[in-house]
């Protein structure tokens, strides 16, 4: 039940290798987050998938259709900065897209409603804000009801409310269509994705289900918070912890102390004992965040790709 199959995808621009030949597959109906730092190759990958650029080697198959071999795969695509015809209204633009696809009864109003543009459907796109254009970009990608939605940095230009709305829409699409989106906003990927691929310097560093990834990279860390006026005692605690052999790092931040342990079991037992006479407000074991995993993996420049299923 694979919706997207990428094999040995390679792209070179002269001497520069943008994509170094990676494999990736995406399950049908899932939401796949494609993460990577700037210049990692995310947009190049998406452009190849959308048929706007050609791979130097390798192939992309979307819903059984090989990209760039004549037939058009059933995709909807939103580039990172979509360009519209400013003289058209939003409704006119969607109507034009519907006619290109030969749709007899296009759900234009429903689509505008879905992306939150119902009130401005008759306004010229030239007057739209960047966030509104991003929503219209999503609308034009959704209108033909594609089986695979390709979104390049769909939330990066949006304010927090706009991001939430966009992510909510993407979440609603789970199971309805396959969503493949690139982002460098890790919190968004963590929030909405079923599966995650991390790319760095044109290489796929890891591909895994989000929950597996977070569990696999769980850190041996905990955070202690004391009452606001107990900062000096917390500093003393940090020094005592540093002196033990089972602490890797104790980082103080006001009345909070973040502790990374070498031996988590021992840390749990002994740290709790050391807190016995302190006014503890909070003691929390910390899970890994996608940000930690992302930074850890992208800093290993030559790591071998890994697929966790």
């Amino acid at each position, binding site marked *: 039940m694979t919706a997207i199959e990428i094999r040995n995808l390679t792209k070179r621009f002269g001497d520069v290798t943008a994509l170094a030949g990676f494999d990736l597959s995406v399950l049908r109906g899932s939401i796949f987050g494609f993460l990577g730092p700037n210049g990692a190759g995310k947009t190049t990958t998406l452009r190849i998938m959308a*048929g706007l650029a050609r791979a130097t080697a390798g192939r992309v198959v979307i819903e059984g259709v090989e990209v760039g071999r004549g037939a058009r795969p059933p995709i909807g695509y939103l580039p990172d900065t979509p*360009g519209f015809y400013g003289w058209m209204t939003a409704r006119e633009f969607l109507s034009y897209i519907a006619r290109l696809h030969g749709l007899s009864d296009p759900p234009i109003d429903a689509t505008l409603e879905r992306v939150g543009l119902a009130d401005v459907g008759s306004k010229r796109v030239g007057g739209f804000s960047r966030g509104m254009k991003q929503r219209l970009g999503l609308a034009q990608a959704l209108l033909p009801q594609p089986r695979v939605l390709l979104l390049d940095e769909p939330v990066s230009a949006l304010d927090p409310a706009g991001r939430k709305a966009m992510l909510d829409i993407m979440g609603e699409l789970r199971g309805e269509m396959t969503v493949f989106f690139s982002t460098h906003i890790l919190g968004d990927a963590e929030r909405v994705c079923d599966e995650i691929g991390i790319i760095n310097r044109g290489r796929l560093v890891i591909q895994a289900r989000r929950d597996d990834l977070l569990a696999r990279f769980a850190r041996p860390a905990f955070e202690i918070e004391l009452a606001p006026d107990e900062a000096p005692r917390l500093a003393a605690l940090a020094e005592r912890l540093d002196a033990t052999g089972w602490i890797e790092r104790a980082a103080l931040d006001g009345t909070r102390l973040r502790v990374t342990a070498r031996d988590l079991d021992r840390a749990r037992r002994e740290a709790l004992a050391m807190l016995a006479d302190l006014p503890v407000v909070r003691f929390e074991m910390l899970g890994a965040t996608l940000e930690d995993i992302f930074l850890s993996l992208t800093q290993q420049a030559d790591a071998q790709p890994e697929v966790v299923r």
Partner: protein
Amino acid sequence: MMRVFGVQLRKELTELWRTRKLIIVLAVLTGFGLMSPILAKITPDLIESLGEGQMEGVVITIPEPTQKDAIDQLIKNISQFGLLLAVLMSFGAIAGERERGQAALMFAHPLPREVFVAAKFAAQAIMFAAGLALGALGAYIYTAILFNAPPLGRYLALIGLMYVWLLCLIALSLLASTLGRSMGSAGGLAFVLIVALLLAGTFTNLAPGKLLEWGRAIAIRSDDSPARWRALAVTVGVAALAFAASCAVLRRQEID
């Protein structure tokens, strides 16, 4: 393919209308069409009045203007302003859409790139056909009023040859628009191509510019210029080649 072409042509024509390009082309070509016979009529009087009192004792003899002068004026105006309009209206048509990110959005939809080019060319061709028709009609009416009506068939042959010449310019500008990576480079390239085309007229009778000489000779029943069928074939060939090259280049191009 034809359905998508229809959709795209409708979009292009609507764009020309909404962005006022259509109005500009119609107004300029109609204006120069109307002005041509009037200018031909009043030019001797203007020169005479300017010369009065300037050079005592010198008598300026200017022949009475004729229908031929009106047609010469029309050819001169259309060849200058028609050329300018044809280049200005089409050099940014494709480069601009690529630069503004519209092409990246549209080519992910079922819009074949050759249809995209064909619709652009067809829309420009329709716009210039309308502009030239109005300008030619205005010029014909005023020529008939101020002088005498040129033979209609011969006059239409002149306008037809002018139109083929304009289509060749549009096709070359669209090719420049496809090849240029930005609006600026497309404009520069269009300028180079058009200058090369105009210069070719001084070296060979096969150049597209010779169509205007031929058209003039037909319209005024002159024997100065023989039939230039080969120039017509070259002009149509250059336009067709430029169009085919635009399609081929755009099909191979990677869109940012």
